[in-house]
């Protein structure tokens, strides 16, 4: 591997910039003649807009323009789209209501944008926004997904009767029910997967700029996938054709999914810039707006059951879920509760029959879309809570019940579409059991009891499907786009390298890991490699970063382009050294003729490619190659997490005293970065399990958790020091054997935590977030 190659613990190149405050985020960019936009937002969860009076606001100091949904409709700007088509069990397509960038005639959630005020300064825009008079007729609201289909629930979009967007099924219902009918044991659970607010540290921001002379638009935005933004804004919203629209996502301070989507504010700023004659329009969210308008995650209500034979062999699993989509369908909102969720219900186990039904509903809440894990945490929670509950019900050891049912043969075709390619689930479990000292648990529990504490242990053996590709597969499941990745390797005449990648780094450390890959191949040192991303004018195309895909898919595209660069470099070197191409090897920054002492430094070969004075006959000058990579399968990271807790029965407070995570991510490029990803994911998963939960007032639909005073983010002292380890089975589906590590922590941890607490308190009836108050109530109800 070398000190800076694959597998090396290299410190992150980008951190110097971030730590010294030199990062360049969207809000740091100030274009000439910038104007500032502030949105007037709905204070009501559901209302008719009777009238909007902007007279006083327009007269306020510094105001340039005030735009409303009527203006937007008048200019025929298209609405936002949901890019993944789902069909209901009866074959009908999902019922997506209109999603205008500024609400027109009706508002559907608190925070829905009603008007855009543009002024010379942000303070002036804020002052004027308060003067916009909107006359609302308040309508009844529904926020609880379980109530959205009630006969008396208000209708949110006329196209979706009963607020039902789709009624989707996967698996064999008949076989599943037949298995339940003759099962020796049936385990049932009611599950709420709590709604979460992603909270990236950098709030969303957008700058729209229309160049009148060129009839060209620039959008600077906080996006995880700028090319997809350009595609949607061109093809569907109709801002401008793609060659007339540049999208730049510079440094982005965390996304967690919430910056995948194409948001209304981006459309509004682009369109507004043209409306005001080409001055840039900048909008930056404040934290309150972020709580109100950044897409939320999860929010499922589920009934689930598992059928087992007398000896504990799994026979069938069924889940029936209502998924809250919120007030509008966000860009990938339909994929999350369906193909990213139902397909994972086999977990790590042989389960012969599986059936799931997901009803997606509109409510008067912030739109819900993918959030770290996206559908897979919800699936894992169902499976792993059922398995743990089954072990308790059957009086079996939860580790051994899992072991008994693990899949051992690969490839393994599950009953829910996926084909798992590789893994060693038992090795993960055994390593985790050893790390946690499972044998010593009874003694630790007894000791805790002498201190008045309830100690419990909980397991979670998760699997996820990552990469969110191949394109053909996702296309057949309804994706509107292909999900390959592209890369370009540009070798400069001096032998330094620029990698242009369609992946987007917003905390993942691509500038380091991608450079490690180049160094592994060319041996030119990390400082001679520059990673370029996030600009549609620079990078040929890209599908962006989410679904733990930058390694398995993004780096694979770089490998393919590097293959081409190496092949050409070898041809040139062979020609220059009068050797056979087949004998050239690349090592330590040199091209060598194997078995001889002949060699050329890489930079001389690069220079030769550009001077072109002496190239093989017919060869084009230059050394720059690009590639597109589309995998043949998803990747399947998997692992076992074990959580050990102590609960204070007097207060209900849970302390995590031990947390072991053993993951199989395939090939690891940089163990330090991977551990960081796992730590962050675990913190988010523990946050979901113990503290985080978006809460709305059931009557008024007001957001009750609109600041950190009420929305409980985990802090450093809320999480333990993690024990992280790995098992490695290489992914056979991509050249580096990588599986992805970005989401595992958030997927695997919630059920481990809840399994541990319910074990400690002896009451299995506990929902997330397991706050002290809830745990105390559960203890006293037991």
């Amino acid at each position: 591997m070398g000190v800076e190659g694959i597998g090396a613990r290299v410190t992150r190149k980008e951190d110097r910039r971030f730590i010294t405050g030199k990062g360049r985020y969207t809000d740091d960019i100030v274009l000439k003649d910038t104007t500032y936009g502030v949105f007037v937002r709905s204070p009501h969860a559901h209302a008719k807009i009777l009238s909007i009076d902007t007279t006083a606001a327009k007269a306020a100091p510094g105001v340039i323009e005030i735009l409303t949904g009527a203006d937007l409709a008048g200019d025929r700007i298209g609405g936002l789209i949901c890019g993944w088509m789902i069909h209901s069990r009866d074959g009908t397509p999902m019922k997506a209501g209109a999603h205008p960038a500024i609400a027109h005639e009706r508002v559907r959630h608190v925070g829905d944008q009603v008007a855009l005020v543009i002024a010379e300064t942000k303070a002036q825009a804020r002052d004027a926004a308060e003067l916009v008079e909107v006359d609302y007729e308040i309508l009844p609201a529904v926020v609880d997904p379980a109530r959205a289909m009630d006969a008396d629930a208000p209708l949110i979009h006329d196209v979706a009767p009963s607020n039902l967007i789709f009624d989707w099924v996967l698996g064999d219902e008949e076989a599943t029910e037949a298995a339940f009918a003759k099962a020796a044991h049936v385990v049932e659970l009611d599950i709420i997967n709590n709604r979460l607010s992603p909270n990236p540290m950098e709030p969303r921001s957008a700058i729209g700029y229309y160049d009148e002379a060129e009839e060209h638009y620039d959008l600077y935005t906080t996006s995880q996938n700028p090319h997809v933004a350009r595609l949607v804004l061109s093809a569907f919203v109709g801002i401008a054709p793609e060659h007339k629209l540049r999208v730049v996502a510079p440094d982005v301070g965390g996304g967690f999914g919430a910056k995948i989507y194409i948001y209304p504010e981006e459309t509004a700023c682009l369109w507004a810039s043209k409306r005001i004659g080409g001055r840039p329009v900048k909008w930056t969210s404040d934290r309150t707006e972020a709580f109100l308008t950044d897409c939320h995650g999860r929010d499922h209500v589920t009934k689930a059951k598992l059928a087992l034979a007398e000896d504990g062999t799994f026979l069938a699993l069924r889940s029936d879920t209502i998924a809250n989509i919120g007030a509008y369908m966000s860009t990938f909102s339909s994929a999350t509760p369906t193909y990213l969720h139902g397909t994972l219900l086999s977990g790590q186990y042989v389960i012969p029959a599986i059936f799931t039904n997901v009803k997606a509903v509109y409510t008067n809440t912030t739109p819900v879309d993918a959030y770290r894990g996206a559908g897979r945490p919800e699936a894992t929670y169902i499976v792993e809570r059922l398995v743990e509950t089954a072990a308790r019900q059957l009086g079996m050891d939860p580790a051994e019940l899992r072991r008994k049912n693990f899949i051992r043969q690969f490839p393994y075709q599950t009953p829910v579409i996926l084909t798992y390619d590789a893994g060693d689930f038992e090795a993960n479990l055994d390593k985790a059991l050893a790390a946690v000292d499972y044998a010593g648990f009874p003694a630790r529990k007894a000791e805790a009891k002498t201190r008045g504490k309830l100690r419990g242990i909980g397991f979670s053996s998760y699997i996820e499907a990552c990469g969110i590709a191949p394109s053909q597969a996702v296309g057949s499941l309804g994706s509107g786009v292909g999900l390959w990745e592209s890369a370009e390797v540009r070798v400069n005449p001096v032998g330094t390298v620029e990698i242009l990648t369609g992946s987007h780094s917003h905390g993942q450390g691509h500038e380091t890991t991608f450079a490690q890959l180049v160094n592994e191949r060319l041996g030119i040192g990390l400082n001679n490699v520059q990673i370029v991303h996030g600009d549609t004018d620079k990078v040929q195309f890209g599908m962006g970063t989410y679904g733990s895909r930058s390694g398995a898919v993004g780096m694979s595209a770089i490998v393919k382009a590097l293959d081409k660069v190496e092949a050409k470099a070898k041809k040139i070197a062979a020609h220059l050294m009068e050797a056979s191409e087949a004998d050239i090897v690349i090592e330590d920054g040199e091209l060598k003729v194997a078995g001889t002492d002949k060699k050329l430094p890489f930079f001389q070969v690069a220079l030769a490619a550009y001077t072109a004075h002496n190239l093989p006959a017919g060869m084009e000058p230059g050394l720059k190659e690009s590639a597109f990579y589309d995998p043949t399968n998803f990747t399947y990271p998997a692992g076992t997490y074990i959580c050990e807790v102590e609960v204070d029965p007097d207060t209900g407070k849970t302390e995590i005293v031990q947390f072991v995570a053993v993951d199989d991510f395939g090939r690891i490029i940089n163990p330090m970065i991977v551990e960081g990803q796992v730590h962050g994911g675990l913190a988010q998963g523990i946050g979901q399990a113990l503290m985080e939960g978006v809460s709305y007032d059931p009557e008024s639909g007001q957001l009750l958790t609109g600041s950190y005073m009420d929305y409980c983010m985990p802090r450093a002292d809320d999480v333990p020091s993690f024990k992280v380890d790995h098992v490695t089975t290489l992914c056979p589906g991509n050249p580096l054997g990588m599986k992805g590590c970005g989401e595992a922590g958030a997927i695997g941890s919630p059920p481990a935590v809840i399994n541990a607490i319910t074990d400690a308190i002896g009451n299995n009836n506990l929902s997330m977030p397991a706050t002290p108050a809830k745990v105390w109530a559960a203890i006293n109800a037991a």
Partner: protein
Amino acid sequence: MYQTTYHRPSTVQEAASLLASAEDVKLLAGGQTLIPTMKQRLAAPANLIDLGRIAELKGITVSGGTVTIGAGTTHAEVHTSADVKAAIPALAKLAGGIGDPHVRHLGTIGGSVANNDPAADYPSAVLGLGATVVTTKREIPADDFFAGMFTTALEEDEIIVRFVFPVPRKAAYAKFANPASRYAMTGVFVAVTGDGVRVAVTGAGSDGVFRWMDAEAALASDLSPSALDGLSLDPSGMLSDIHGDAAYRANLVKVMAKRALAALG
């Protein structure tokens, strides 16, 4: 934030006359409550009087069985004061448990007590120790000072100058922090003084800080935690919100009171 006019008096006298003469005015101490409220445009005073540069409002002195703390003394100063630690260690500990280091280095005891947030820590110490609130106009006993959530006996043109805390025989503070805000979900301050036992509760009551009289009576003859075993609080007087319902808070008051008693030593 809206436009506001900023005043920086250097004496209490000057501050008091500004306060009396200016329209639509607010005192600014550490700004840890007021500034966020102004940023969210929930408060919009036309005039701000910054008390931060007034030397008379700062400092801690111990004499004759009392600890006197200037209203402008920061939480960090109280927390780290050797005098407070020696005389009323529970008070130093309480101050060290407020917010985070940033908040503790700016926020002041005067601002906290004047604000009387139902979940703030300091009101329980002021009430529990039976302190005296000295203002520009008078001396107010703690029992007469707190008047329900975010409400105090302070008049519009009155400034808290200092607090006089009688040194107790023993005292302890036990806080159960709200998981999100880390303010007190329930905080119980127990003080044993020459006149008996005082138990003040913050975070839990729907009228803000209060004295738990039943507990004080039970503890008069027996200072052990088990003296509270037979007691319970009526949840109808407790706060109820997304973090915990009234029954939970009623339970916490008893649990935290016992923990404070156990910590009395």
